[in-house]
């Protein structure tokens, strides 16, 4: 198989590729992972591109090699690369830390730390930190959200928060992403998607979208890299929702997906017809809207992988995007489960170029370097 696995003796909560430098035409070769639920949680940097491991035919053979790791206080709740050297990590203790990866001597060090960026107002407990559930970076700006319903805006190298919205949400904020440079999207535990304009001094969202019916909690959110009005979210029931934030307050389409919590959703950064989701049920799905169904036989099965076609239940749209389209000929997508023998939760995934990395509660990390092969 083209997937290599490594058991790492810690449950992996996050896995992220290191971004590529703009100049180089290379494939991703370094990624970071964070662990959770251990007495001693760690941030680790792994390499998969070691030249010594390249086989005769040029394809990669070995498993990921540990470059360096460092202790992290609390569960790693979220993690983002700020640039090629710095990683922002959200902790269950409410602390947000910037780690620096020194590539010359392969070490990690804590560069900057905002202690208890998220906290509860309770006076009884002295250590009233609240879990920081999500972090997102844009240039030097870092936005964090937490179980305390708070939104923080930090700037790298500034000691204090640039902006804090206390009680921004009465329920738990599960994830955050940038919509534009000054606007962010958050999802919460009562099925709401909110847009916040950080330029406005009002401590209220500029727009609220929500699921109808049962307010199923939303756990993850991602924005289409090119068409910023298209937003994907994943919920507690494993449902994938596609939203058009230019209109309406409800999702454009609801797609039945996983059997349990969808922990992450990612549009492919350079090939956004492809989307990836992973779940507590131990599956990782590849959603492909690029295939023109009319050209392919509908009974398509690829080497044991289950391939299914789903119909959108779209409302009327006039947008030319595969994700919003209701054109009956293109109104289907190909969905592939990338994990055949699923058992424990796939907590995190990341895609960059042709490379996929994911981490599980079965204490393993998996790398696929030929995703579209």
């Amino acid at each position, binding site marked *: 198989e083209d997937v290599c696995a490594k058991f790492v003796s810690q449950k992996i909560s996050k896995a992220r590729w290191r971004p590529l430098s703009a100049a180089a035409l290379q494939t991703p070769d370094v990624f970071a992972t964070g662990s959770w639920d251990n*007495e001693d949680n760690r941030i680790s940097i792994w390499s998969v591109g070691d030249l010594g491991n390249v086989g005769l035919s040029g394809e990669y053979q070995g498993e990921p090699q540990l470059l360096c790791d460092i202790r992290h206080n609390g*569960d790693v709740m979220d993690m983002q690369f700020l640039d090629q050297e710095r990683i922002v990590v959200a902790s269950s203790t409410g602390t947000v830390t910037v780690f620096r990866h020194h590539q010359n001597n392969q070490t990690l060090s804590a560069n900057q730390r905002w202690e208890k960026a998220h906290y509860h107002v309770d006076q009884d407990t002295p250590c009233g930190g609240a*879990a920081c*559930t999500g972090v997102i970076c844009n240039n030097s700006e870092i936005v964090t959200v937490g179980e*305390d319903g708070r939104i923080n805006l930090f700037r790298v190298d500034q000691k204090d928060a640039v902006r804090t919205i206390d009680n921004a949400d*009465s329920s738990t904020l599960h994830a955050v992403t940038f919509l534009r440079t000054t606007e962010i999207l958050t999802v919460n535990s*009562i099925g709401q998607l909110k847009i916040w304009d950080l330029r406005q001094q009002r401590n209220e969202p500029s727009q609220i979208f929500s699921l109808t019916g*049962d307010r199923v909690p939303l756990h993850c959110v991602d924005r289409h890299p090119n068409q910023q009005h298209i937003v994907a979210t994943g919920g507690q029931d494993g449902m994938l929702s596609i939203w058009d934030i230019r209109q309406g307050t409800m999702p454009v389409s609801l797609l039945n997906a996983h059997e349990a919590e969808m922990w992450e959703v990612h549009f492919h950064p350079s090939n956004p017809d492809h989307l990836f989701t992973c779940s507590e049920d131990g599956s990782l799905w590849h959603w492909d809207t690029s295939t023109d169904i009319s050209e392919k036989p509908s009974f398509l099965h690829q080497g044991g992988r289950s391939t299914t076609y789903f119909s959108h239940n779209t409302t009327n749209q006039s947008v030319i995007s595969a994700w919003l389209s209701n054109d009956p000929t293109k109104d289907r997508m190909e969905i592939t489960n990338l994990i055949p023998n699923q058992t424990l939760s796939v907590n995190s995934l990341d895609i960059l170029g042709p490379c996929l990395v994911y981490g599980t*509660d079965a204490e393993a990390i998996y790398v696929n370097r030929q995703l579209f092969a």
Partner: protein
Amino acid sequence: AAVPSQVVPGADPCARQLCFAWGPAEVLVCETLFGRRGGSPSRGKGGPGRASPPGALTGCVAGSGEAGPSSSRLFVVRKDQDIYIQTLRKLFNESHGIFVGLQRSAEELAGKSRKAQLVQVSKNYRSVIRACMEDMHQAAISTRDPALHSQYSTQVSVLSAMELIWNLCEILFVEAAGAGPLLLRLLDWVRLHVCDVDNMVREVLSSENPSKHELFWNVVDVFVLQGRMDEARHLLAKEASANPTSVNMYKILDDLMKKMPVPSLGNTQTLTEMELKWQHWHEECQRYLQDGTFASNSHMESICKILLGDEDAILEKKELMTTWYHFLVTQLLYSHPTVKPMELRMDLFLGGESSPEPLDMILMAAFEFEMHQVIKECSIALSNWWFVAHLTDLLDHCKLLQSHNLYFGSNMREFLLLEYASGLFSHHSLWQLGVDYFDHCPEYGRVYLELHIERIPLNTEQKALKVLRICEQRQMHEQVRSICKIMAMKALRNNRLGSALSWSIRAKDAAFATLISDRFLKDYCERGCFSDLDLIDNLGPSMLLSDRLTFLGKYREFHRLYGEKRFSEAAKLLLMLMTAHIAPCSFWMTLLTDALPLLEQKEVVFSAEQTYELMRCLEDLTAGKSDKKTCQDDDIETVKVEMLRLALARNLARVIVKEGTLEGS
């Protein structure tokens, strides 16, 4: 695992009395002052929460240990210490996948293909053990700490013993090959595990002139003893070319070795056929030995004796075999190659060693086909439940343990799986693996899971969600309720009313939803405005969970209508809240006060009928109150009531005029 009597270091049962408290897979032992002062036992705080450092032995000291002679100590005693070894987590996780796969694998495959499947599962387990051994070996090499090094080395030898036992069980029980193939498997097993002589073989083979090496004949003997005929002949050919005088003798021995009948793996020959060939070959060897063909060369003579299965000749090479089981297999090879599994026991005692180690006992039990004895000995000798739990489960799937019943619990498979999974649950991180093991214990698994899952500390909401998912998938309603309640209580304590409410909605816990709704209403009464509007405005169908929640939602709707200046709708809703008894009585006064601005509107809002109903509500309220005691608080109340009465009267007057005019026109 369970050691018969383990003394907790530092605890002195002679000087003090000890008391025990059972925890999940751990025992809390503490010294008490009970009986001395006649008081109650001194209780240590904390309980069996904190874990000792990974790899530590069974006892560890907590509490105020070192401070003076009279201070009492706390001990946490563990029964499954291997769970805490970092490198073994790979073993636990990877084998979990194999275990789950085995349980899922349909038993519809019959006969041969089912057996092939089970053998493959067994091989997978072994390859996991081997991979883990490799890692542990690497760790042992790379560490500079001598204590760690010896700890890792011990683990390597334990894992290697586990693999040795498993492999033998695989050959004898899982694969249960027929007479001939069985012997080939046993030879493979010996070659794989008796590696003490490998270095010697390597040294001789890599030397410039192997036949001149002083250990040359030892290596030839090793090959012959392990049944590696081709390799032995290859070496002998070298020696023969160096001794042209005795080339004929070499040729004869080479011929004998070449002609030795080998049991085939396929079914191409019958046992009788094989036995006939063997008889013939045996006689030929015997002839050459008796006519003194090899008399001039003691090495070759002894090889010929070995080929004849001469016990003394084989025993002479004892140090080349290093273990009794190598001897046993060699003896089988040359004296009785068509041995059937059941006949092995006859030969066992030929290899009696001076003092049997636990490993010897286990292997002997295996050779005697005492499966239960193997499992029992392993349970005693090994410091983990992993091995016996997985092996027993595999043997159970081979339908080999059906007849055996325990006097306690359900059956042996389930008993061992429960023990192993309980150990996993005592671990701060591996507990997730334990769930699937409990799932496959039909009798007590559910109960164990229920008891263990409630003890998982829930430090983040995400972890709570994972635990909750486990419970919901198994319809463990009691546990779902308790987890949601814990999380709701936590949120409430942190003043996160919104979160608290969504947790109680998830658990459909009406009582708790009522409690939280009351907090919202109290906050409103104190502050005059609602907190967490984003939640209250979006209650949706969950509003129907409790009456109080319904009231909260409706009351907020009243405020929204009022804010949007939809007065008559607001008025209707307000009245309905009281007349339909949705509002709690304690809140009526607030509602009536809320009616005041509506009564004072320029436009008449309440109809005459509605005004009468409002008046009745007010009178019901004051009538109920008047019997009770009065105090200064009531002064404000009295003023309010007076104001309301006045407003109601004026409204009534206005509405009578208005309605009268409307009818008249």
